[in-house]
């Protein structure tokens, strides 16, 4: 038991150090560093905001802010997944050298992205304060949304990272999927425009309630309905369990395939 406790403590320590390394290494040689974090979704927001207002039948209140928070969430998710999926292959020298819980490789990537994501959200809150859309309900909504987002990102990333070692085309599959997935999530449009007979598809996509929870929390858009939330959370839990179990099982054989 004492041994287990030591193992777990070492895991968290290692994860912390690796995350720190990820953050440090990323911005080591860029002068702007943090600036890019905001600039990227800002540019996307301006472009999409300009074009989509032509097509929208029912305008969304505070559309630019609506877009921006969705894009922040999406960028965190897609960047984490794109980087975590081939991460085991990129660290093959490490895998062949030392024995450590392999989970820290994709997890440190996700956590370093999460730090950036939270920093960006904090900055985003400043102009939001002037909209007077924040309420007491905002806190649990935003907090809950972030929790589900991180859990879901971890689950999917562990699964794709583990499978990509054995099947290299998973990486390409993820790239293609992300493009479709972006449009399958209410980021540029509102959930209310989806015809009732297709709603089940969004119930299978946890990104729906995640994005909706944050949109609701920050700018008071319609919150996700109860059924959607529950089914999204169930999917998240299932994906998480499958991801963790698959990674655990596959990680013992990573060395054979890289």
């Amino acid at each position, binding site marked *: 038991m004492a041994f287990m406790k030591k193992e777990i403590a070492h895991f968290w320590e290692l994860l912390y150090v690796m995350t720190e390394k990820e953050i440090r*290494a990323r911005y080591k040689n860029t002068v702007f560093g943090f600036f890019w974090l905001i600039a990227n979704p800002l540019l996307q927001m301006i472009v999409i905001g300009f074009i989509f207002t032509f097509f929208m039948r029912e305008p969304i209140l505070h559309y630019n802010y609506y877009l921006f928070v969705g894009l922040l969430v999406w960028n965190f998710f897609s960047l984490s997944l794109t980087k975590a999926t081939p991460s085991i292959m990129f660290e093959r020298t490490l895998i062949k*050298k*030392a024995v450590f819980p392999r989970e820290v490789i994709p997890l440190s990537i996700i956590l370093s992205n999460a730090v950036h994501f939270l920093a960006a959200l904090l900055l985003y809150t400043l102009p939001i304060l002037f909209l007077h859309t924040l309420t007491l309900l905002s806190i649990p909504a935003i907090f809950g949304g972030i929790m589900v987002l991180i859990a879901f990102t971890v689950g999917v990333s562990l699964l794709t990272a583990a499978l990509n070692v054995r099947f*290299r085309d998973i990486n390409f*599959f993820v790239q293609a999927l992300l493009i479709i997935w972006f449009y399958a999530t209410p980021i540029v449009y509102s959930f209310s425009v989806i015809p009732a007979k297709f709603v089940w598809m969004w119930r299978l996509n946890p990104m729906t309630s995640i994005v909706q929870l944050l949109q609701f929390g920050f700018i008071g858009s319609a919150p996700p309905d109860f059924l959607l939330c529950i089914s999204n959370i169930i999917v998240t839990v299932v994906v998480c369990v499958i991801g963790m179990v698959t990674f655990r099982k596959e990680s013992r054989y990573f060395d054979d395939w890289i």
Partner: protein
Amino acid sequence: MKKKFPIAIQLTDITKEYTIHHEKPTLVEKFYKGKEEKFIALNHVSLTIHKGERVGIIGRNGSGKSTLLKIISGIATPTSGRVAVFGRSISIIDIEAGFHHDLTGEQNIFVNGMLVGMTKQEIIKQYYKIIRYAALRQFIDAPLFTYSEGMKLRLGFSIAVHANPEIFILDEGLGVGDDDFRKKAKRTLLENKKNRTIIICSHNLELIEEQCTRIILVDKGIILRDGGMDVLHSYGRFIEE
């Protein structure tokens, strides 16, 4: 004599099969290919190594030496059989692995030290010893890309030594730095603190002769011979056959 020491490593009936893939493996391939080609790297190998033994593993390329080391260090998992390893093991296979070139020497000591199994506390305690051993004092806050190849190897070796492993595994000898440092490294290995078990796999027979007392000859996935120096001396003849 051996019986007095507790067991450090016990391998029981280990078999390791690899799937041969000619190109990058893909999921699509799995659906139309069906049967996979197998290669048996280790074939029902059993081996017991006691604490404090100094074992040299020799054999031709592709004989299964490296696979054996990987199984012992826990990097690879056997297809069947049981592995029991008592104590922390460190394998020096790729000394530089895990270094990040944009980070400073100091930051790399922490990342690398923890990857090989040290806790933060241990690293803080050993920090100055690591730097002194690697002779890197004035460079320690410079980013790693400014280091020479030798400096990086020294730092990596120093971290491994100060991690105080009970089992030290070396693949392909000591490529460490210049002559002086190589001598220092060899001396460190010979010091053998706390009955440290040392396993070296190399084509460099001189190194094996200098460092080891027990020699294991691996060939075609099985242990062909297991004994003392006589195994090493008859190796030359074996290779010619």
